[in-house]
Each structure stands twice: as C-alpha cells, then as structure tokens.
C-alpha cells in the first residue's frame, strides 16, 4: 500500500472527524429544553440558584465563540464534562463504564456473525440452489427483516422466561462480579448468551445475504473457471479463489455496517437490560443528559470513521490493485 493511499484515507478520516466534532457541538446546542430546568425541577429554587447552576455548567456564556472554543479545547483533552444524570461523574468515566459491555456484546457478535454469516453465505452462494442455500438464505432473509428486539423478545419468552435456561437480563447475576474465577466467567457467559444470540442472529442474516451475493457474483468470474480447470478440489477453489475476491466488498460493507450494528445493539441492550452504551443512550436521552449523549455520539461516530479507515487499509492489503 502506498503512502499516498494511506495518507489520503487518513486525511479523509481526520476531516470527517472534525466535521463530526462540529456537528456534535451544534446539534446539542440546538436541543430543546434547558438542562438546568429539568434537573432542578425542585420546589424551592430561587432564580439565583438557577443562574448559579447555569454558570456552573457554562450554559450562560454565548454559544459562539465561548462555548465552542471551550468545547473543542476540552474535547481535544478528552474532557467531555460531567454527566447531568449521573451527577458527580465525568462523562468519560460514565461512558467508559459502558464501553466494555457493548464492546463485548457487539464485538463478539460481529466476530461470530462474520464467521458464521460469511461461512453460510459463502457456502449458500457457492452451492446456489442447494439445501444450505435454500434454508440458509431463507432464514437469513427472515432474520434480516427482523429488528433486533423482535429477535430478542421471543428468545426471552422461550429460553429465559419459558425454559429458564438463561437469565433474562443484565450482565452479571444480581450481586455483582466479585465471584471467584471460573464462576464469574460462567456467570457472564450465561448472561451474555441471549443478547449475543440476538445480535449475532441479526448480523448473520445480513452478512450471509451479502456474502451470498458476493460469492455468486464472483462465481461467474473467469478465474473461477480457470481454477476449476486446474482440477482443484471444490473447497480449494472456494477458499483460495472465490472467497478472497468476494471478501473485498465485504470488508467495506462490514465497516460501513458498524453504525447500523450499534443502532441495532441499542435495542438488543434494552430488551436484555445489558448495561452497555445502548441502555446508556436511552437513559441519557430520557434525562436529556447532553454531555453523555454528546460523548456517545462522538465515540460512536469516531469509531465508525476509524473502522472505515481500518477497512480501507485492510482492503488495501487484500487487494493488490489498490496498492499502487
């Protein structure tokens, strides 16, 4: 990969992030309602107190330039202010608490579904019209059409409420995570099972559909005929020739998809009370916790940009044609 290609992508990412930071600032200043009023829906407040609160939160200064300048400055320092809802806690720590669970859920979900979805999609596309294709693609299309929470709700009804195999919600058993070693992992795994299944199922549907069509497209390429003519085993043709080429569009799609995945994960988290960014987003939204919302938006948007950057780089590594 050439330095120019890399530099170009990097520059693009930086410009996008800058735009996101600006948009983030503007969006939240446009939001209705005044936070101090919501928080101070309190019988005995005097006007002075309200003013003092505004001053404390910097809401009394003019939007531009004061609030903007201080916003950009503190954002660069990683200081996103203090949560309105979780009082006394910096936004970064509130968010940091929730990043882990979401990363665990979405990361594992992505991992599983990338493997499973791509495997199913590749096989279905490769053996188009076969049993795997018919069943797999049927299931995938249905899953693809299901909002995450529609996948999650029946899972709860069946496996948690009905059969009692898994807990209904949360990330750890009530009482927290200070169990001895293997127990805490098992406990986590049992809690993770259903939300993970939800996120994975939703993604498997998407990825297998995408991979199937990518493989079908690739399958009709001449170099596949060449590989067949070489008398290579079918599996080898798929693995060594069809698959790497079909993966090229997938890399980009998976990265672009990340934004949607996070959106979907929000609903999955709500259904399962998973203490991640999704539930935090909703809590923050309900209590108009602007700083936290701002932080989440920034985090998610920047992650997506970085994921896209990573995808570009991976693409460059996978496809020799971009290297020049």
């Amino acid at each position, binding site marked *: 990969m050439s330095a120019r290609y890399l530099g170009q992508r990097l520059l*693009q990412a930086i410009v*996008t992030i800058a*735009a*996101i930071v600006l948009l983030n600032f503007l*969006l*939240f200043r*446009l*939001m*209705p*309602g005044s936070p101090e009023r919501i928080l101070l829906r309190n019988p005995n407040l005097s006007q002075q107190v309200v003013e003092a609160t505004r001053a404390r939160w910097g809401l009394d200064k003019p939007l531009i330039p004061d609030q903007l300048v201080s916003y950009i400055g503190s954002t660069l320092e990683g200081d996103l202010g203090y949560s309105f809802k979780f009082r006394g806690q910096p936004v970064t720590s509130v968010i940091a608490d929730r990043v882990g669970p979401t990363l665990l859920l979405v990361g594992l979900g992505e991992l599983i579904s990338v493997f499973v979805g791509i495997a199913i999609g590749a096989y279905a596309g490769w053996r188009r019209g076969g049993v795997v294709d018919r069943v797999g693609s049927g299931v995938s*299309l*249905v899953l*693809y*059409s*299901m*909002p*995450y*929470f*529609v996948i999650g*709700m*029946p899972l*709860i*009804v069946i496996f948690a*409420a009905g059969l009692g195999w898994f807990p*209904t919600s949360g990330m750890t058993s009530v009482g927290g995570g200070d169990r001895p070693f293997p127990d805490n992992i098992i406990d986590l795994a049992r809690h993770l099972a259903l939300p993970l299944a939800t996120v994975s199922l939703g993604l498997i549907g*998407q990825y297998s559909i*995408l991979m199937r*069509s*990518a493989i079908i*497209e690739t399958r009709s390429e001449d170099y596949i005929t060449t590989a067949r003519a070489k008398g290579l085993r079918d599996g080898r043709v798929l693995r060594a020739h069809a698959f790497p080429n079909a993966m090229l*569009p997938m890399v980009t*799609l998976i990265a*672009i*998809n*990340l*934004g*949607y995945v*996070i*959106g*979907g994960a*929000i*609903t999955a988290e*709500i*259904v399962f009370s998973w203490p991640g960014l999704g539930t935090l*987003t*909703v809590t923050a*939204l*309900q209590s*108009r916790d602007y700083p936290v*919302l701002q932080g*989440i*938006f920034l985090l*998610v*948007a920047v992650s*997506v*940009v970085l994921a*896209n950057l990573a995808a570009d780089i991976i693409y460059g590594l996978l496809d020799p044609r971009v290297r020049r």
Partner: protein
Amino acid sequence: MSAARASGAPVSGAPVSGAGKAGRWRLRAAQLRAFAARYAGRADGMLGLVVLVFFGILALAPELFVGPLETATRASAHAFDAPSAQHLLGADDLGRDILNRTVHGARISMTIGLMATVITLVFGVVLGLVAGYSGGLVDNLLMRIADFFLVLPTFVLALILAPVLIEVVGADAEVMGIRATLLVIIVVIGITSWAATARIIRSQTLSLKERMFVDRARVVGVGPGRIILRHILPNVMNLIVANAVLTFASAVLTETTLSFIGLGDPFQPSWGQILNGAQDSGAAGLGAWWVIAPPAVSVVLVILAFTLMGNALDDLLNPKSRVRR
C-alpha cells in the same frame, strides 16, 4: 440476456426521448408490459407483492376491516385477554383489541415508511442528479457530504435529531393526518438515508451524461435543467424504483426501532409503538405473546416483502446490480 432480446426492449441506454410524445408513451407502455412479464416470472418478487398488497389494502381502509382504532376509552376487552373468538388476537394491557391495533398500525407504519421514502428519494435523487451532472466542485462537495452522512451512525443521530425537530415543528402539529412526533421520525429517516440513494443516482447520471443523446441535446442548446429532467431522469427511473422499494424496507425498520425505543406516538400507534407498549407493560414476562407476535410478525413480513420485491426489481432494473446492503 436472451429474455431482454426477445422482449424487444431497447438495448441499454437507447434514447427514450428520441421519439415523439405519443411514440414515447407507446414505447413506455410496451416496456412496462415487458417488464411486468419479467417481474411475474420472479417468484420472490411476486410473493413480496402479494404480502405488500395484503398489507396495503389493510392500510388503505383499516376501519373497513376492524372498525375505528381502539383507544384506551374505546377498549373492547379486558387487560391481557387471551385470543378468543371475540378477540382473535387478544388484547393488550388496556384491553384494546390487538387485531384492531395491528391493522391500524399497518396504516401508520406504512404511511411513515412511504413518506420517509419520498423524502429520501427527493433528496437523494435531486442531489445525485445535480452532483452527477454538474461534476467538478459541486459534485465533489456533495459527495463529501454524502460520505459524511454515510459514515455517521444514523441511528444515534436519529435519536438526537428527534427531540430537536419536535421543537421546530411543535408536538401538536399535524400534516396530512400525521402527528408531529411521527413527522419527526419521517424527517429523521429522510435526513439520515438520502446519501446512499444520491450515490447510486450520481454514478448512473455520470455514465448517462457521456452518452450520445445527452451530448446531442447539449449541442442543440438544451439547458441543463431540461437535460436532467427530460433526458437523464427518465433513464435513471428504473434505478429509482428499485432503490425506493429497498429504502421503504429500511424506513419501516428504522421507524419500528425508533418507536420501540419510545420516540413514537401513542396516539397513532405504529407497529413499533405497539411493541413499545408491549415492552413497557411487560407482556413477554406475563406470557402475553399475542401482544407481541402480531405487530412483530407484521413488521417482519412487510420488511421481508419489500426486501424480496426490492431484490427482484434490482436484479431486473439495475444495469449493474451489485452487492449492497
């Protein structure tokens, strides 16, 4: 390929605008018939169409099938009544008939989907055409903006935009019988999904621009607006149609999700809103699956139907159909 040849449809990119007006219409009608025949050959597309027509009919006249919308005051059953002869799909926590609400939900969900699609298309098509046709700086700028929107986590953005927009329009405003809360959802979906459409339209416009008939028109001195309207737009119409159907599917999905999270409007219950109510009232835990299943199944069926139709149309209409979300 052979089918295309047999049907006599013009080989790709023939100038539709070459013939006189009447001729053009005749040509259109013939194309349409040929297209309908090809579409009818697609089992998946037809299945989608049947499902869609079913829900479309429900959406057009819900009163005809289940009477007026059951509200808290008009509830005809008792809380969480199980399905019975009187209430085929049971009742929710307020004793409202689920069948009634699901059928009415069809109207609301699909109206939102439709309006969101229209907004998406108007933005996407106009900006795509302009970018593709003007090229240069305008194109560059518009596409950078589109890239930006493509990268943005649209869902989180939608969550944030919704309350901002509600402030702008006011929660008690109504347009065409759609309440402000829902209008906001519509606009939010539009704002966050136009970019993909714009990209597709732009790339097709770019290639059309280089075609002979556009050149010819330009040489004759036809203005850019007219060229876009008369020469390019008709030729990207097929793309727009295929894209519209897929956009509709994702609009319904987004609407359902936003409503589920609580951004919907309880006075105009879409399927997502009904599911939100089910979640709030703990229907799943109470074993009241009948509150969840009908709206959930409806959502899935409609999205599935649109996806199937969209894929079929895309295969048939998009000259370079390729992998996409």
